[in-house]
């Protein structure tokens, strides 16, 4: 499976949401990182044929996806950020319905639905109405519906948003397990989700891919160093004013700061390996802290 984004652009009036992206993706998990408004969802919607680009093209194994139409959508599984459902449907009804609109034959749909319900841990809730499920259970239904047609391209937009830590770990493992022989594009604010699962990371800013590579490649691109600085409480303010601080951990007697800086920020500072969170903060700056789920 090979997806090629050729000069892909999407504008809404004067605003350019996706700006001339050139990218090639093959099988594996791609983590799409970016702040709110970076254009991640617009990009994913174009990849799902929900939006038509205003410029450029998307090719799947050499064919334009909009010309492929249903043939391409047959290869796609999509879990949108705002995953809506039909509240009066049971989990089974909902999955049977989605299987029908995905063109899965009824006999196959029944088998596949039962398999996926078990896989996402919803066997006991299979006959429950969707409106009665918890947020985590609904996300699990979401991933199940995306997998119904055994997609070769799986597009997951903020799949772990709103999940508790246990659910997130479970979800991450599930996604890792699904990544064999398919292309998974995973967008999230939660840096650790990508850190743990993605083979390749795409960093998106103002509609463009500003950086891409494996976790090591990405962290190596950062020209500044990361410092672990235990400092007294009274020095915190002056350091945070002068440097980018990716973490502040307060103990009883001192504060442990994680500082991104080319120079040693204080006498006690020790140089440590950069994490993806540090890179995220470095590239996206203050905006990275605007959203609750960023770190």
């Amino acid at each position, binding site marked *: 499976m090979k997806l090629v984004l050729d000069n892909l652009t999407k504008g809404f009036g004067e605003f350019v949401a996706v700006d001339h992206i050139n990218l090639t993706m093959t099988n594996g998990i791609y983590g799409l990182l970016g702040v709110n408004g970076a254009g991640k969802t617009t990009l994913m919607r174009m990849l799902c044929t*929900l*939006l038509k680009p205003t410029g450029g093209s998307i090719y799947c194994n050499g064919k334009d996806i909009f010309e492929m139409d*249903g043939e391409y*959508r047959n290869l796609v599984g999509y879990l949108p950020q705002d*995953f809506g459902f*039909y509240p009066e*449907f049971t989990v089974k009804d909902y999955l049977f319905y989605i299987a029908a*609109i*995905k063109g899965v034959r009824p006999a196959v749909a029944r088998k596949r639905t039962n398999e996926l319900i078990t896989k996402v841990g919803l066997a006991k809730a299979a006959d429950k109405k969707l409106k009665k499920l918890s947020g985590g259970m609904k996300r699990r239904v979401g991933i199940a519906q995306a997998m119904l047609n055994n997609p070769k391209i799986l597009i997951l937009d903020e799949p772990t948003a709103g999940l508790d830590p246990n659910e997130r770990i479970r979800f991450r493992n599930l996604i890792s397990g699904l990544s064999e022989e398919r292309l998974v594009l995973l967008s999230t604010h939660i840096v650790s989700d990508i850190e743990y699962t993605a083979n390749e990371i795409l960093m998106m800013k103002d509609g463009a891919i500003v950086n891409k590579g494996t976790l090591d490649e990405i962290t190596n691109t950062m020209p500044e160093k990361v410092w672990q600085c235990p400092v007294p409480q009274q020095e915190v303010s002056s350091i945070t004013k002068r440097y980018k601080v990716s973490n502040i951990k307060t103990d009883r007697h001192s504060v442990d700061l994680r500082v991104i800086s080319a120079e040693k920020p204080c006498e006690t500072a020790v140089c440590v390996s950069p994490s993806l969170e540090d890179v995220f903060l470095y590239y996206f700056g203050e905006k990275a802290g605007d959203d609750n789920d960023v770190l």
Partner: protein
Amino acid sequence: MTYFELKKIFLKPVSRIVLTILAVSLCVVSYFAIGYVDYVDENGNNTIGIAAASALRDEKNKWAGYITDDVLRKVLQENALINNSKEYLSKDVTENNKAYSKKQGFSDIRDMINRAFGSFQSYNYYRADSVTQEEISSFYDRRTANLVEWLKSDEQENRYSEQEQQFLIAQYEKLKKPFYYEYADGWAALLEYAPSIIMLVVLTTGFLAAGIFSDEFQLKADSVFFSAKLGRDKAVAAKIKAGFIVVTSIYWITVVLYSGIILTVLGFGGAGCAIQNGFSNWKAFYNITYLQDYLLTVLGGYLGNLFILFLSMFASAKTHSKALAVSIPFILLFIPSFLSGISVLSEVLGLLPDQLLQVYTAVKTFNLYQIGDRVVGAVPIILTMYFILFCILLPLLYQVYRKTEIK
């Protein structure tokens, strides 16, 4: 897919409420329609229901047959005889009712005499009492003469062109005479209340159909729907099919139940009589029977339901708004009522889709249109026009929905 679309519609709590309201409305309208036919017994007591309808049918069918001059004279004789009875002349209402109970059998024919010998635009209940045996032979001619007199009156000057006037006169002349008469009160009552039940169906079904094309957006299920393999073709067609099944099944179940109840209680007789028999449709220029009027009414109602509800589905597919979809049937039904007082708009109002829901009323209305050299009434025009518009609406709805972009 269509099965699941139907399931989506009928599983909603609002759908159950709406269907309950429709069932209650059906009972209420049926009650009123049954009450439309009453019988006054020999003691002067007024009754309604199966027994009353049966008794009235027996009385009226004593006069069943062609309304010839002889029959009309006999009606005048009987009428005069009863008018001279002590019950009729009494000042006691119950006594008067006893006298009326003897007139019930020929009351329809008496009404027609009142119509024929009165003026075109007014009705005098006592006119038959003064019609002479000599005059009565002009009964059928009077119908056309009244029309001609009305068309030439100052009140109607310039309303109808010469060609339209000739059309109306020709239609009157074409009506087969003498009329065949028999008890047809079941059909008359059925038709009288048919527009009410048809309008209730369109308003209530509007709530069910409104969500078919907008729920995905309201529930944020649109991305999954349109990114699915069949989300832009067969799944859209399934929605259209579901809409068609909902509109068709609710309409025909309601209409068949309503017709069945009314005709079972009030009787099926008189289906082949011209609608001009009796009081209500004497002036109508459409030369049709009660059965034909019923078929036009229910088929027109069905077409009206289809057009109005698919228009509301089209609006919801285009705007993604359920509220707009629900309000479209209300707008199309009630705006013309507010404008009906403006006479210059009568020709336009006669062609609006609400007319399809009340073909029974449209049949009685003198709305004429000239197409080339031909003059036609509103009914054939609206039936043809809205059938064509409905056929255009279906592919438009399909195209608009399948090309939806999720922004």
